[in-house]
């Protein structure tokens, strides 16, 4: 199996006993094509057979399904760790005991703010019920979690809410962005500004540092700030947390809808992204179909647009949360305006537009290169070249910075411009050669590098070294 799924989210029903203002799935009554109990239990076996480690059951409101304890037990019997997300309304004593008996690992209740806000968004009395539910979960020994969708309605209350959750014995807390989808599409004034992302990251960092509750920012929050990495290290209780590799959809996870439809992510649910239905094909067949999840499995950074196209991290995150981009801009290839780095890039543009001292800009750029901040250095150098297009040193440095940011076309352009000023500049030749190699024209790259080597009378060992690596990587004959 090329991709091994680890987890999935299963919306077991579209039926819900609440009508939340921010519900992304606009859930109301259960739909007639919902999986029957036997179908659901059969799916549990398939999930276990596929090797999933854990699953999140959500909805709708999953507890409105009478057979939910049976589903949990079946998953558990198949070795799958089960987490359940609920609005908490139906978490009575009896239900909590049944859940405990079924082997659920974590029950997370959606909490949207302190009592007043939560009840306003959800239902009168729901905060009090959740409070009681947390007490019951703690009593029977089920890990109690909270999930908060952050909007402008509650962002100012996060500190207060944190204290409430801690006092209620909540152990884990997932925070996620409220995006304008489902019911929230009608509440656009609730949707956060991109700049508020930093406030959320700061809040998560502060909370993680305190160590009183484990906070988990969802995949739509970040990316690549030191603070966010620190939060993950603390909450995952791991010293080695790698940089995030982008959306898991179709690679390590997938979604199941109430009717057995399989898709990459339950938030990306329009028909064109449905990969199959378990009533027609087995889950394994769908997962292993080489044409399935192609929107994610075949996604490349080259397709990205806006600032994501020039971003240093583009090959790492491929734009981050796909649903965020689809929801905000209607395109999976568009830039991710909620990315913390995207916000920073926009600020950098403004910063360097305001500087016009070439000497100062060059000094800044060199300092930035020294500290490996190639992206910002490229901004400074771009500004130098706007002011003085024939600045050969800036062209050489820009070429290098663009290379380090994987912006090979820009690297090529900068080095070509440097060579237009001095055709025998071995450094620019080298930059051009490696850029061409990266762009797929290794043959020309090797030829240029050979010229550079000859210009240096074969004295530059590094040039010779790079020439050897280019040959090796391109599998072209040494004779070239």
């Amino acid at each position, binding site marked *: 199996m090329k991709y091994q799924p680890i987890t999935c989210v299963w919306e077991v029903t579209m039926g819900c006993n609440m009508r939340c203002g921010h519900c992304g799935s606009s859930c109301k009554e259960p739909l007639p094509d919902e999986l029957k109990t036997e179908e659901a239990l059969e799916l549990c076996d398939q999930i276990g057979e596929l090797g999933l480690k854990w699953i999140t059951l959500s909805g709708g409101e999953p507890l409105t399904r009478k057979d939910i304890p049976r589903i949990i037990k079946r998953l558990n019997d198949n070795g799958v760790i089960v987490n359940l997300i609920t609005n908490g309304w139906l978490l009575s004593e009896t239900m909590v005991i049944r859940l405990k008996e079924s082997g659920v690992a974590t029950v997370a209740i959606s909490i949207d703010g302190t009592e007043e806000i939560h009840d306003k968004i959800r239902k009168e009395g729901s905060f009090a019920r959740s409070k009681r539910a947390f007490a019951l979960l703690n009593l029977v020994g089920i890990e109690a979690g909270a999930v908060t969708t952050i909007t402008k309605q509650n962002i100012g209350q996060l500190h207060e809410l944190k204290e409430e959750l801690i006092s209620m014995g909540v152990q884990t807390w997932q925070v996620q962005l409220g995006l304008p989808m489902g019911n929230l599409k009608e509440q656009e004034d609730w949707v956060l500004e991109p700049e508020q992302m930093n406030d959320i990251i700061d809040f998560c960092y502060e909370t993680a540092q305190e160590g009183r509750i484990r906070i988990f920012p969802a995949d739509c929050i970040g990316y690549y700030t030191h603070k966010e990495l620190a939060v993950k290290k603390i909450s995952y209780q791991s010293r080695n*947390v*790698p*940089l995030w590799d982008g959306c898991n959809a179709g690679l390590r996870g997938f979604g199941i809808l109430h009717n057995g439809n399989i898709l990459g992510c339950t938030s990306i649910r329009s028909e064109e992204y449905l990969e199959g239905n378990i009533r027609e094909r087995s889950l394994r067949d769908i997962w292993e179909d080489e044409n399935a999840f192609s929107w994610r499995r075949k996604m490349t950074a080259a397709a990205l647009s806006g600032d994501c196209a020039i971003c240093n991290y583009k090959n790492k995150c491929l734009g981050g949360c796909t649903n965020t981009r689809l929801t905000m801009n209607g395109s999976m290839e568009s830039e991710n305006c909620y990315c913390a780095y995207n916000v920073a890039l926009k600020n950098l543009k403004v910063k360097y537009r305001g500087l016009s001292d070439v000497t100062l800009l060059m000094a800044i750029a060199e300092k930035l290169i020294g500290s*490996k901040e190639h992206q910002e250095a490229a901004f400074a150098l771009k500004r130098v070249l706007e002011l003085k297009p024939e600045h050969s040193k800036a062209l050489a440095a820009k070429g290098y910075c663009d290379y380090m*940011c994987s912006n090979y076309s820009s690297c090529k352009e900068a080095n070509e411009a440097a060579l237009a000023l001095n055709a025998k500049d071995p450094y620019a030749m080298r930059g051009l050669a490696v850029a061409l190699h990266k762009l797929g024209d290794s043959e020309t790259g090797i030829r240029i590098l050979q010229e550079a080597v000859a210009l240096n009378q074969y004295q530059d060992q590094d040039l010779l*070294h*790079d020439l050897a*690596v280019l040959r090796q990587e391109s599998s072209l004959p040494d004779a070239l």
Partner: protein
Amino acid sequence: MSYVQEMVAYEGKVFQVNLQSMLGSSPYGWALSNLPEGIVLEAVETSRLAAENTIGPVVQSFYLGVTAVKEYNVKLTFLLLCSFAPKKVIDSCTVNLRIVPENANQFATYSDNAVAEDPAVNARNAADPIQIKYGFPCVMQDSALMYGFNCAQPAAVAVDYGLVDSSAGDVANSAMPYGYISSAVHKYGYPCVMQSDSLYGMSFNCVNNNQSQEDTPPVRKTTPFISPGSPFVDTAQMKYGYPTCQ
């Protein structure tokens, strides 16, 4: 006369303090008298100012590392003292060290084309054998690990180290003005090897009246564990780098 200097160092990096003395030609040399929490002394190197002179001023280089620190403004005190009679302190130099936190930059350092600076963070990147990982030569992990010196962060040594010369208002790689003892006492030479003192648990008078100056090792030289100019081991990685920052 004592000196007070300002200096900037980076958390997680090595920096260097250079002080000039007549150690070797005299028993007087600089010694580090305190290490604040989070600062470690990695090596000391003594080199002659002029290679051809056996007698004359030397530069004592103190290589210090900044580990995880809690206090970002600390003081280092160096004393110019007589090596065999440490109570004879004739001068001092205080370095007010401002430490730049490791995460001063908001974002994790990353490049598809660099060997990971932080193996823990970029583990996947570093482990991928098909990547081209060229950049500055010293970013090569193997050589860094072999010498126990994280050369992935050479900037602190190669570029940013040194004491700020307050008169010039600039960074000086080698802070020469200090400790130059102008009096005549330093013509003796200094034969002793310091560890003899501690081995025998007694003060060992290094000055041997019967010993001629020719028998005296002119300068106590230590082989540094680290050096910013250490050669790096070649690996099969390209080395396209930007020359001004090397």
